[in-house]
Structure formats: C-alpha cells, structure tokens
C-alpha cells in the first residue's frame, strides 16, 4: 500500500467525519427547537413573566427566534463557518468565550480522571490476569463489579456525606475556595470528583485488560513461548501484554469522550464549574447557541478519538497493517 493510497484512505475518513459532524449538528439544531420551554428566560430571567406580548415579540426578534427554523439554521451555519457561534443567552457573552473559560476546569478533572483510570486499570488488569482465578483475582472481580454498579451521582452524594459533612476532610463543592488558594486547595477540591470519576470507570477498563490478556494467554503461541524456556513474567509482558496493548490504546482513544462526558454528572453534584455544568444549564434553559457549540465540540471529540483509535490500531498492530497489504506473501 503506497503512501498515496493511505493518504486517500485517511482523506476519505476525514470527509466522512466532517459529514457526520454536520449531520449531528443539524439534527440537534432542529430537535432542540422542538423542545418546549422559553429561551427568553435564559436571557431576561424573571423579567419575562412581566413582558407584554409586544415586548416578547421584539425580544424574540432581537434574538432572531421569530424566523422559521430553517432560516435560523442557515443563518447559524453561515456564521458558524466564519467562526461566529453567537452569544450565550444566559451569560450574554460570546458562546466560545464562555466555553473557553470553563474548558480548563473540565480538562483538569477529566484529564486527571483519565490518566488515573487508565494507569490503575492497566495495573489491576495485569494483576488479575496474573493471578487468574486465584483469591486475589476473585476478590478484585467481585469488588469491581460491585463498584461499577453504584450510580455516579449517588456515589458522589455518599462521598460528600462521609468526607465533607461527617469527617470534614475535603470540600464538597466548587473548583477552588473563594478568594483563590494554592495548588493544595485545587487538589483538595479535585479529590472527591476525581475519585468518583475513576471509581465509575475503573473496573470496566480493568476487566477489559484482564480479559484481553487472558485471551492472549490462551493463544497457542504462548505454549511455544513457554517451551522456549521463557519465564511466566516474560511471556506475560513481552508477548501477551505487548499484543494486547494496541487494542488497549485504541480503547483509550475511544473512551476520551466517555470519560470527559462522564464528568457531566459529577460536575453537577459537586457544583464544579466545568463544561458539564454548562451543558446541563444550556439544555435546561434552552441556551441554543451554547448548546450547539457544545454539541459540535463533543461530536468532534468523539469522531476524532474514533479516528485516532483506528489509526493507533493500524500503526501498532502488524497484523492489521498486513491485512491492508493482503495477498503479498513470501517475498
């Protein structure tokens, strides 16, 4: 397969990606306007209730909400293509700016959760696979299944109840104390939300690693590797883990949006000022422009991470790159 062909393949994928994001955005645009509720509330707050019909009409006109949906859509799309995503009704600021001001917090929370989840799950997965069916493996499996059943919001509540209210060890809300505070303060505010994020996802991935490794351990080539005289550790790490790693990495790539998106609930419970609370508010109060931009963002993250996963798989796994060049045998 030549470089040209490869470029062609990726170009095609990029095109479908753009198309998918476009479809997604269109669908969300139309569906969100079907929802009952009054976007004016987001902009004018309580004043809306005291408005006369004329004032309402004027206000709607000012926000461009009187035109047919398709006209609104075309206008939005035209502006969006120029990088103008409109203003957030609630914050009365550029939607992009609102998001930019919150994105950092979510990235810190999600990023910390992501790194911890994946390093811990790799560790746990290898540990379980090593002691397959032993007491440690069984206990961990049971514990993990139990932990993955607890709904995130409830776990957050219990954590707050235990660590903030009863023990008073850690703060229960926000990203930092009012009036700033140093790194320690930030970390203290992060501790509970991050542990909920990790607890919610950890076992799913650890179990995946465990099963993937065991699949490799049962493969025939392990017998040959053992009969060479390799130790169990060498077989496990040099052969099994190495073969399981590409699929684990691509799984990591796919789950970027899952873990980032999973912060949604946690952010709301802990009143953590991130994109999660933002998207919760924007759906609740029909803050259309903000909602659209958030959807665009999350759609892009999902699709890009999907592509990254495919890329990782193809580059790291010689079996797959061989399939591309199938038919070429025996030089």
């Amino acid at each position, binding site marked *: 397969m030549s470089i040209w062909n490869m470029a062609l393949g990726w170009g095609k994928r990029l095109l479908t990606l753009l198309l998918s994001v476009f479809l997604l955005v269109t669908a969300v645009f139309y569906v969100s306007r079907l929802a009952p509720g009054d976007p004016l509330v987001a902009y004018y707050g309580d004043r809306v209730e005291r408005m006369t019909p004329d004032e309402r009409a004027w206000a709607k006109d000012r926000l461009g909400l009187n035109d047919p949906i398709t006209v609104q859509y075309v206008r939005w799309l035209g502006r969006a293509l120029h990088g103008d995503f409109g203003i957030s009704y609630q914050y009365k600021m550029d939607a992009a700016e609102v998001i930019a001001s919150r994105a950092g917090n979510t990235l810190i929370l999600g990023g910390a959760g992501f790194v911890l989840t994946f390093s811990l799950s790799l560790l746990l997965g290898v540990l379980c696979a090593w002691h397959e069916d032993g007491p440690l493996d069984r206990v961990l499996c049971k514990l993990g299944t139990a932990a993955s059943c607890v709904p995130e919001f409830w776990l957050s509540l219990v954590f707050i109840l235990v660590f903030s209210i009863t023990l008073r060890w850690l703060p229960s809300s926000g990203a930092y104390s009012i009036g700033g505070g140093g790194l320690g303060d930030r970390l203290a505010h992060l501790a509970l939300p991050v542990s909920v994020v990790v607890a919610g996802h950890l076992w799913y991935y650890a179990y995946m690693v465990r099963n993937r490794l065991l699949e490799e351990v049962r493969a025939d*080539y392990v017998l040959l590797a053992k009969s060479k005289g390799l130790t169990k550790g060498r077989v496990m790490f040099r052969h099994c883990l190495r*073969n399981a790693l590409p699929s684990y990495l691509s799984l990591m790539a796919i789950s970027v949006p899952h873990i980032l998106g999973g912060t949604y609930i946690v952010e709301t419970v802990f009143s953590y000022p991130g994109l999660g609370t933002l998207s919760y508010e924007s759906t609740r109060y029909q803050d259309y422009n903000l909602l659209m931009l958030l959807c665009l963002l999350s759609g892009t993250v999902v699709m890009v991470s999907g592509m990254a996963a495919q890329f990782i798989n193809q580059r790291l796994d010689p079996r797959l790159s061989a399939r591309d060049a199938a038919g070429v*045998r025996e030089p």
Partner: protein
Amino acid sequence: MPELLEVKHLSVSFFTHTGEVQAVRDVSFSLKAGEVLALVGESGCGKSVLCKSIMKLLPQTAKIKSGSILVNGADITHYRERDMHKLRGRLFSMVFQDPMTSLNPAMSIGEQIGEAVRVHRPRLSREALRARVLELMALVGIDRPEERMGLYPHHFSGGMRQRAVLAIALAGDPAILFADEPTTALDVTIQAQILDLLRDVQHKLGTATVFVTHDLGVVARVADRVAVMYAGKIVEIGTAEEIFYDPRHPYTWGLLRALPALSKGRDTLYAIPGMPPTLVNPPRGDAFACRNEYALAIDYQEEPPMFQVTDTHYAATWLLDPRAPEVTPPSGGGIHAG
C-alpha cells in the same frame, strides 16, 4: 546406553465441570539419546497430553495424578514453574501442530528466534546473536535468512512457519524434541519436505525426538521406535520393524488394516468398528475390547498387563497370555517384509 527420559506409570487427568477426564492412564516408556520415538493413536487418545504433561505445559485444570518423570535420572515430576522454565528450551522443547497459530503474530520471526537463543545465553553480543539466528534459519532451510529475519509470521506460508517454529525449538540445543503432529496441518508435498528436514536435523544434531502423529505412513518414515496409544494407554511399543511387520495388539492390527493402501482392489475398506470410549468413564477391563473382534472374556473384566514379546517389544493384550487361544492375525494386520 543410559535412558535420557523415563516415564513411569504416569497418569494425568483433567478436572472439568463434566467430571474427571483420564487423559493419560498409567503410561510408562523411555527414550534414549538420539532416537526417534513415534506416539501413534487416534485423536483424544492422550498422545499430545502425554508430551505436554512432561513439559508441564498443560492448563491448570490438568493434574499429574501419579507416576514419575525422570530426565537424565533426575525426577522432575514435582518441579514447579520456576524450575521448569530453566529446563524448557535447553533440555526439551516442542513443535506444535498448527504453525498458523503457534507463532506470535505481532513479533518478527527473527525476534522470536532470537528470544529463544537469548533465554539460555543472556550475555550473547548483538552480532553473535544475529549470527546464531541466521545459522538456525539456514539449518531449518529458510532461504535468504537475512531478508526474512524482519518479516512477520503472516508473511510466511504454512511450511515456512513450521520451519521457523522448528528453528525456535532447536535454538537452545535441546536434548529432547517433542513434535506434536508437526505436519498434520500441512499439505502432503509440504509434509514430505518437513519430514525430511526433521530427519536431517535429527541426524545432524542427534536430538532425541518424540514424534506424535496419527498417520502410520509418517511413522514409517521417521520412527526408530513406535508406541501405539489407545484411550490414554500405551497398548503396544516396539521398534518400527516390530510394530509394522509383527504387530501383536489387535488395535495395531486394526490400524494397519484400515490403511487404504492395503485395501487395494477390495470392495470395502477395513474399518475398526465402533468408536473410541470417552475418557470420563473408561470402560472396565480392556478399553479396546468392545471394538475388538478377538476380545476374550477376560478383556471385559480385567485390564491386560504389558506382555513382553522381545527385549524391545511389549504389548498389552490378553492374547499374549499363555492361557489364551492361538489367534492368527488378519491378513494386512502386519506388512510382510520384502
């Protein structure tokens, strides 16, 4: 000549959720340095389990129930994993049935062979390692080894992969090579090449070989001695000549008669009636009795012991008991020399 490998009354069982599967039942045999012993039998007779249990490559559900395994006089029956990996590769190594799955698909051939060399000689320099890998690849008849070192298994055909597996098995200069149906998954023409290769290598290096197969033709080509297995037991063991030209066990007669080459011009092929028994509940007495037209009443009661025919030839059938009636083996039951 001292015995290189001695297996005494070995029994191996698998403990599954359907019960205990007695895969190997009271097997004894020995192997001298440099000789080729063929283990013949139908699938499920325990021949492959026997090899893997000697190398301790069986899954955790399998247990050695009784008996002992001696290598160079040392008892390795109760060796743990950490003792075993020092023996594997150097004392004995194995070639597996399916070359398509027995190589790591994500590692280049050169790397896999190199790893096998390095295990036993960790202080080898890079150049020396490379030279040794090339030497091994040339030994097993892989042309242009320099080019092919960096290739992955999927670039290779079945025959080539089996050569690579053989190179890996030979990397540590093992004293014993277990070859578990190494040619079954290959085409006949490739099988012939691999068999010749095995024989050449065996002559060159003097590696004692245990060759597992179900094909008597292959046995005739490679084996010095033959052990016939049925339902987890060795029922007859002897030199190749003795087994082919003077078989004593009715099962061996049946196997030889069932060869289509020997039914030329006949209307029907000879077929051993019935099916092999399950090893969950092996029948009482001789497991082969219910398929054996020469069965004696005692076969259904009591397991036959090994009767000695010559110094090298033993068979487990009551027909060899002095009290048994005289039975003429069926024509085709032994191939007449000449």
